[in-house]
């Protein structure tokens, strides 16, 4: 029992065959002939990691592109509506690309909040001036 394990062809496996079997993959991910056959044998691990990172990066880029396309479709959708009112215009395409870093996101959020505050201040100021409220300071001094 177990003899089939000892006599299996795996014990006579040729390393060279295995090397040739994997060789095209490493050529495809950018390794040279010399790097694969003559350089540090551990180099393949780093090429594999780099290949994985590249794939993730590509996936991220494609996802981002999909987001831009999706947003563009959403923005233009008001005019695509069959019963859209006359004069309906598409929403403008974003003025700048999405920021990809946390820092950029934070800065963008801060700028947007500042703009919103200024807008609110202007609206409130206009509303207050329309009310013609008495100057409470002067009233107090007059009394």
């Amino acid at each position: 029992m177990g003899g089939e394990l000892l006599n299996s062809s795996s014990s006579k496996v040729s390393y060279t065959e295995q090397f040739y079997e994997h060789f095209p993959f490493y050529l495809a991910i950018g390794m040279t002939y010399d790097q694969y056959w003559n350089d540090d044998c551990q180099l393949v691990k780093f090429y594999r990691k780099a290949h994985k990172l590249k794939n993730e990066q590509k996936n991220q880029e494609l996802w981002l592109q999909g987001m831009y396309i999706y947003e563009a479709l959403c923005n233009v959708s008001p005019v695509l509506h069959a019963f859209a009112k006359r004069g309906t215009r598409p929403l403008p395409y974003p003025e700048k690309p999405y920021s990809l870093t946390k820092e950029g996101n934070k800065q963008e959020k801060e700028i947007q909040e500042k703009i919103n505050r200024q807008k609110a201040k202007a609206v409130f100021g206009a509303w207050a001036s329309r009310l013609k409220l008495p100057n409470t300071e002067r009233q107090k001094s007059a009394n």
Partner: protein
Amino acid sequence: MAKDIRFVHDGKEYRLEFTRKSIEIMERQGFVASDIVEKPMSTLPALFAGAFLAHHRYVKKEIIDEIFSKMKNKQELISKLAEMYNEPILALVDEPEEAEGNITWEASF
């Protein structure tokens, strides 16, 4: 970095290492790793000589044999050479990703 063995003989520095090419050459010349168990007397010196192919291809066989005969702690040397010989093929195999079903193991030697 690949595993290697370094030593000095007759004032010359040697660095023993296996590359895929050196293993290919060894196998072409008839070296079979599994023969280590069945024919250790002929296979072990061949394994040692094969480790010269990567960086010292043109060193004569007599010098390699002389170095081998002078090497201390042969058992440890052979185990290290075997580890080095397997490295180029093991580097091609990915470690399984962290998962619950993975098996951890340990040896008593």
